[in-house]
């Protein structure tokens, strides 16, 4: 079981091209005690991976240079990161997006706009449904 208090132990990589969204997510996670690194697109994120070794990655879908789909694919290709929980963030709230995102291999999906009051609790609750994610984050402790 993961609890919201565990967020304080996490290293989170936020990959997001929109500066405001990046700041918002960073503020929230740092407020909960997480250590946060940011990248503006997929390529930058991949360059940061081994050095930062995140416990969790929050990945925007629509980004320049390298979008979220491609970035996820590349992350999964790296042996030591094929299990790291990757959360999609998207402002696309059209029908079918959710299915497409989960099918692609994301572990959860946050749709914009999200509520800072509840988004992390919902995230923790959703991650608890997935045994491999719980095991992964548990082993990190």
């Amino acid at each position: 079981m993961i609890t919201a208090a565990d967020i304080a132990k996490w290293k989170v990589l936020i990959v997001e091209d929109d500066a405001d969204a990046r700041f918002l997510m960073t503020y929230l996670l740092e407020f909960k005690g997480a250590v946060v690194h940011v990248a503006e697109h997929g390529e930058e994120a991949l360059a940061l991976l081994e050095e930062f070794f995140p416990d969790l990655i929050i990945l925007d879908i629509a980004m320049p240079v390298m979008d979220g789909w491609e970035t996820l694919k590349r992350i999964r290709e790296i042996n030591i990161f094929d299990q790291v929980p990757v959360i999609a963030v998207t402002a696309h709230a059209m029908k079918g997006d959710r299915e497409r995102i989960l099918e692609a291999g994301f572990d959860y999906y946050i749709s914009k706009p999200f509520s800072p009051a509840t988004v992390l609790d919902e995230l923790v609750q959703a991650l608890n449904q997935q045994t491999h994610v719980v095991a992964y984050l548990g082993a990190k402790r």
Partner: protein
Amino acid sequence: MVILLIAVLFPTTVTIETAISDYGVFQVLLTGLGVMISTITTVNLRRIQDQAVSLQAANQALTQQNRELDLAKREADEANRLKSEFLSTMSHELRTPLNAILGFSEIMKLGMGVKLEPVSYGMIERVHSNAEHLLELINDILDLSKIESGRFEIETAPFDVRALVKAIESQVSGLLAEKVEFQVDVHGDLPRYMMGDMKAIHRVITNLLSNAFKFTSQGHVALTLRPVKDEMKWQIQVQDTGIGIPPDALTYIFEAFRQADGSTTRKYQGTGLGLAITQTLVREMGGTINVKSELGRGSTFTIVLPMDIRQAEKEPSS
């Protein structure tokens, strides 16, 4: 042959001899006949030829028309695709700044690491509630255009009426006011399992209920589901004891962005799209919606939907 024919034709009045001597006359007659026949044939042939030509022309016109129709259809499909794409992009572009506005104003409101003076708090609360309203508007506009462009597909699947009512009750619990009683009546004769689009039905009922609660400060809001007698239809009724709708407004409350009283938009928050969406959805489901209202007494909205119980009892889902 000719003589025989003449003998048969004129057995009593003309002798065979006369016939033979007058052979030249008959030959003229016969030739005339031949000319007549060939003329008739020629005329007929020409007519047939003319008809063939005009048929061919008609055929060509039809082919041309088909080509044009095909082109028009392709153009319409393309326009529809562009509209979908535009909606999707617009939705994305509008949500991105809203995410920042809603997010930061909520963080300030909740005081997550930020301390506010009471005046600032009041202001940021307004920023937040207006941003929420804007988001609601965007969602409703997108929904309405999705339904209108036919991209919102009405699904037909078995659903459980009891599960539907339960879901509605739990959603409405947030709207309940102290002086307003919420009554739910599901008629015993209504089949528990029916075919239809549960999400769409859920949406229209909650739209009507949220209006009813919004405009009712005391008394009751009643939801009634019952079969229509002697017809394969069923009825959803939402009745309230609220402020009611002026008679002249009854004609346009289903139009987008029109509320009964221009000033109510401000007094009673809402996007002004709820009833437009409701009516469009009901029509898409092959149903009708009606309203009766008396100022100061309340309003009654009645939706009638076709009842389909094929297969519904065989493979119920929740």
